[in-house]
């Protein structure tokens, strides 16, 4: 059982990390709580399904196209819907909720309310430490690790990353220093949604795809970013692993209580917040100007 927990926790944690880091990035830079983040994850899954099953393209072209189109859509949505109301935090909040609802309804309308299954990219499995893991889940883990490394590289070794970090740190001063804050924000949106879209593409074959699939990961992802500290990437990663393991432990140790895994994860988040109101690695923000 211990091996099961180790492996399952790692895989779940990897998936959550992909989602949480993207969300944290947008929040850190643009101060936007993007409720529609997991809705983009859902869109990518549907896009992948449409391209793979309906249009019959191969795995790699479908995946690349799905990620690219969802990212593009996100940037367009940002320009049209979010940017005009940037100053009004409350309005941004429900704009993202409204966007998520629109995507949900569009998918419900186009594909119907029933559950869809996407064929796995890789068939078969392997036994590690006595635990049988399908290759698809290993793929998720590998992709998650690769993406996280890539994000780290972009953020800490490129000029764009420098600009993103500077803007996250202090918007006004970054602007004074000559960085185009709007472009940086758009780039951040693009990177963040691309991460969510990649998550959607690799994860969707493992789970079922339906128009409401964005709600459950949303809650878990919010729990993770809050737990880790909003705006802190390291916090999001560690939070994702913690929550991934907590869920795995709940399910394996308490088989009759498996349905409680969501509530337990949230409970842990509340407990951590009581002790540290900014999350584990969060920075308490001064009042924004």
């Amino acid at each position, binding site marked *: *059982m211990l091996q*099961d927990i180790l492996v*399952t926790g790692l895989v*779940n944690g990897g998936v959550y990390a992909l989602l949480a880091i993207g969300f944290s990035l947008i929040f850190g830079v643009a101060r936007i709580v993007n409720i529609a983040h997991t809705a983009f994850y859902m869109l990518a899954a549907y896009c992948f399904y449409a391209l793979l099953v309906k249009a019959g393209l191969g795995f790699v072209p479908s995946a690349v196209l799905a990620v690219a189109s969802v990212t593009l859509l996100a940037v367009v949505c940002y320009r049209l819907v979010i940017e005009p109301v940037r100053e009004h935090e409350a309005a941004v909040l429900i704009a993202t909720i409204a966007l998520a609802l629109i995507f949900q309804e569009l998918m*419900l*309308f186009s594909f*119907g*309310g*029933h*559950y*869809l*299954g*996407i*064929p*796995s990219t890789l068939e078969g*499995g392997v036994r590690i430490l006595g*635990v*049988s893991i*399908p290759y698809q889940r290993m793929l998720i883990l590998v992709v998650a690790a690769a993406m996280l490394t890539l994000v780290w590289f972009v953020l800490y070794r490129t000029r764009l990353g420098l600009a993103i970090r500077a803007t996250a740190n202090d918007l006004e001063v970054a602007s004074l220093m000559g960085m185009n804050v709007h472009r940086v924000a758009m780039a951040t949106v693009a990177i963040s949604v691309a991460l969510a879209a990649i998550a959607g593409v690799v994860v969707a*074959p*493992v*789970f*079922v795809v*339906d128009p409401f*699939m964005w709600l*459950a990961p949303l809650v878990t992802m919010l729990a993770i970013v809050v737990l880790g500290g909003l705006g802190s990437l390291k916090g999001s990663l560690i939070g994702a692993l913690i929550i991934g393991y907590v869920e*795995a432990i709940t*399910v*394996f140790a308490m*088989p*009759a*209580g*498996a*349905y409680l*895994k*969501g509530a337990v994860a949230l409970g842990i988040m509340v407990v951590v917040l009581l002790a540290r109101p900014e999350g584990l690695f969060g920075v308490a923000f001064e009042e924004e100007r």
Partner: protein
Amino acid sequence: MLRSIILAAATALVATAVQAQTIKIAILGPMSFVQGENHWAGAEMARDEINKAGGINVGGKRMQVELVRADTNEIQSVPDATNAMERVITRDKADFLIGGFRSEAVLAMQEVAMDYKKIFLGAGAAHSKLGANVEASYERYKYWFRVTPVKDTDLVRTLFAVLNTIAQQIRTELKTDMPKVAILAEKAVWTEALIAAAQKNLPAMKMEVVGTWQPSATATDVTAELSAIDRSGAQLVFTMLSGPVGISVGRQMGERNMKAVAWGINVEAQKEEFWNAAAGKAQFVSTLDTFSEVEMTPKTVPFVKAFKARFKKAPTYNAGTYDAIMLLKTAIEQAGTTNADRLVPVLEKISHVGAAAVLEFDKRHDPVWAPGKNTGLAVQWQEGKKVPFWPPNVKGMQPFKMPAR
């Protein structure tokens, strides 16, 4: 000015006169989802069949059937369902109400229908509370009849009957005396009684319960449960699943090449889309079902064939609205009236041969469960098709298959 008033009055008069010639039946269900689609499809088949044959004979007068479509959106919102119910009764002036799916919503909808004393035929919710209300407060709830499915406690009887048959097959093929059974039931109120019954009765049926696992109804990942079941060495997984977890179970069991076979209630596995939803991996998953091209009654095969020809997919149990409307027709013609109070005693004593089963009602207005009359059937997914295998004595049944060891 006067002319337009007269014209309007005349049109209204004609309209009401025309309206009085039809019997309005409201079909209430979640129309964006498979359940509502089937509600409507079954109803349309009944309406077209009746109207083509001349309509319903109400005490000498022939009246056509008119359907009112009401989207309850019950899966997402219970108040929407009650609003829809109120609307079809007061605005659309429906005479009869058929449908429903989500038990929480149907309980609320039942209240509205009983307020207005309209006959409400259930075609989707299995919860026994709906019938218990009839017994507790007969005068108020007598207008409710459940057409499909049989109530949850009766489903158990079919489940155990089939379980016995499969266990016998396991005993013979795998040469083991006490087949090991793992119970995999979603965490929900409707499974509580089933789990308790299983845990109590299986040892007496010479089967060993190796464990009970309860994922959430919307769980998308059952690796944990399946790993544990693998380790326990179970040969049979007794499923009680109504949500999308049923798809995950089917798919992941196939992906792991599990040697155990799944039998039980798996509502998702009753749908045509299940095979694709499980990405072609759900071989050998078996479940309780209602419609298949076998002769449960003389009407079953013609109905299923006609349904498939018209709608290009097989009916789910919600298409029992067809039986509900046909039942109403028989009752109305017998009573000679559409008056609800006079129809109730007729319905209580009726024995109607439907497409799914022979319909009779007990004192809770639940369909009577009886072998040969109304038991449901069992199907197994083999190579992308739902193959019926139980009850064995019915014409058209095929053998149950198990994974190769």
